[in-house]
């Protein structure tokens, strides 16, 4: 039989059993929709994280106290470690030690919030260099000015605040020149940031940035820093700079065995790699679940095809009596199976994209993340190929059963 008619026959037969056909492919539809959603989510998350991190600047590295955390206990040890002090800051800043460095600022995290005239707000208080912050994180000032190196040198009690902090403490009032209180120390507001939204690790709008020297003296009262943020002259020399920093600190601390490190240097690329690995593992796991769903769906298709073959024994017998070969019958049923699962694949791709699209809007709306919908071409392509393969694999057995029926047995069947 000509292929055009194999296709027509299969189509007519499926249309005649519309509701059953739709129920048969439900498993495939769900499986393929899941593939679409998993790959759309994976792509979306990767794009989000990569763009947020590159917002921090690929040429930026972070030096943190304690050795590189590999488990929960290492994180605790990293928080308690006090290996980064002025001595280390000075050593790294020296051009002879780290020639690729063009800028460095220590950072201090201060727990607790701020208050103004009895109004209290929980905020992330950061002892930092405001200029460094602006340049490296792409922040914009809405009002006022940044504090500068002179303020850092003189340990001025000044602060630049995020838009949410400004809103909650001052409302529509003028904020510049007002004094807010952090841990009983009064800070004069010199600038406010434009609304920025969620960055990867904290919300810029919740930020209060004060000079690190001031934070160290009045807020924490300790001699060590939470971390150093260091900028290289270009992305290409980041790895070399990280190595220079490592060597400098090891010399300073007389460390010969890397296992004994009481600090670690993190590049942005390292972070991106880490996160990509996590997303990859997650995607792999979900793909495994989806595979199981597709196998279950395929077995369902096979089951219904077998029922259909039995029901249509007379039709098969008639077609054979009229001249259909075994191959004609085999192709007819195989075509039906592939059309069924293929249609399931297409419906799955459409539904999956639709859900992912809606989910992306919801995430943007409610979580405030810059989560874009990316149509996963690979996922769509793979989904349709896989659904056709499922039809071939699970359709071949029922089709063989059909093709082997003898015309006599078939015609006698009531």
């Amino acid at each position: 039989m000509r292929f055009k008619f194999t296709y027509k026959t299969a189509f007519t037969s499926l249309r005649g059993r519309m509701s059953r056909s739709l129920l048969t492919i439900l498993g495939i539809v769900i499986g393929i929709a899941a593939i679409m959603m998993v790959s759309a989510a994976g792509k979306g998350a990767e794009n989000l994280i990569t763009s947020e991190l590159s917002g921090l600047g690929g040429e930026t590295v972070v030096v943190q106290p304690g050795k590189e955390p590999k488990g929960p206990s290492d994180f605790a040890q990293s928080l308690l470690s006090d290996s980064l002090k002025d001595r280390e800051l000075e050593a790294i800043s020296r051009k002879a030690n780290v020639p690729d460095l063009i800028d460095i600022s220590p950072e201090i995290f201060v727990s607790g919030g701020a208050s103004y005239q009895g109004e209290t707000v929980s905020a992330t208080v950061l002892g930092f260099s405001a200029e460094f912050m602006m340049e490296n994180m792409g922040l914009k000032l809405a009002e006022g000015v940044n504090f500068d190196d002179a303020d850092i040198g003189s340990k001025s009690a000044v602060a630049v605040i995020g838009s949410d902090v400004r809103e909650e403490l001052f409302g529509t009032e003028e904020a510049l020149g007002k004094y807010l209180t952090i841990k009983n120390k009064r800070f004069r507001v010199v600038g406010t940031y434009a609304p920025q939204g969620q960055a990867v690790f904290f919300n810029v709008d919740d930020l209060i940035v004060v000079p690190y020297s001031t934070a160290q003296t009045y807020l924490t009262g300790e001699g060590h820093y939470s971390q150093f943020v260091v900028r290289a002259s270009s992305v290409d020399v980041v790895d070399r700079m990280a190595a220079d920093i490592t060597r400098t600190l090891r010399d300073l601390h007389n460390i010969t065995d890397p296992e004994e490190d009481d600090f670690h240097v993190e590049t942005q690329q390292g972070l991106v790699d880490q996160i990509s690995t996590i997303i990859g593992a997650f995607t792999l796991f979900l793909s495994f679940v989806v595979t199981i769903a597709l196998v279950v769906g395929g077995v369902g298709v096979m089951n219904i095809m077998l029922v259909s073959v039995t029901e249509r024994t007379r039709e098969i017998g008639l077609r054979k009596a009229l001249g259909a070969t075994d191959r004609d019958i085999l192709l007819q049923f195989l075509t039906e199976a592939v059309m069924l699962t293929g249609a399931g694949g297409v419906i799955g791709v459409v539904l999956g994209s639709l859900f992912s699209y809606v989910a992306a809007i919801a995430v943007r709306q409610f979580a405030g993340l810059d989560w874009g919908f990316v149509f996963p071409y690979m996922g769509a392509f793979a989904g349709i190929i896989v659904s056709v393969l499922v039809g071939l694999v699970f359709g071949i057995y029922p089709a063989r059963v059909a093709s082997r029926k003898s015309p006599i047995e078939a015609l006698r069947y009531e």
Partner: protein
Amino acid sequence: MALLLAKNISKSYEDGTVALDRASISVSKGEFVAIMGPSGSGKSTLLHILGLLDPATVGEYRFADVLVSDLSGAEIASLRNGKIGFVFQSFNLLPRTSVYENVLLPLVYSQVPEEDWGAKVRAAIDAVGLSHRIEHMTSLLSGGERQRVAIARALVVSPEIIFADEPTGNLDSKSGTQVMDIFKKLNSEGKTVVLITHDEKIASFGKRLVKIRDGRIESDIVQKTS
């Protein structure tokens, strides 16, 4: 030259039942043969073997001078398609399809060029007097009309021979007579017809009457047709 030539063909099943026991029959072009026998006599088995739907267990059968046991499945399918037309007791039309589509079915499996299909289908439907019903769904037709659709389907490939298995078994006597008149007319135009029945009245349409009982051919006589 005999169109069908069966020598001592038998059909037995694994459980030991013998459906056909050393039957020999020869049918020439243009004959109208009625095979008659009670149910279970083996007449259907004989028709199935002669119509290439089922192989004989032993014996030699030639169709149009070709030894059937030498043919592959695809070759047999192609003979069924091009040289043989079947008409069944229960019509065996496809559900949810029109008269036209039913009659078209054998052509879909044939080597006939697609541009000739329409003319052939219309000619076959015309031959059974159903031109006015061509686009109707077969489920809306009467039993007699359905059987005429089945005859048109058998005719559409211009076969050498038509096998009919109790073609009037599900029909009232009036439509039964109509259907038999069609077979008579086809035979007078030169078509070979082999039909089986257990009804003497129907059997009397045949120019030749073969009686079969317990798998054996009992008698084979030329008769005057009514």
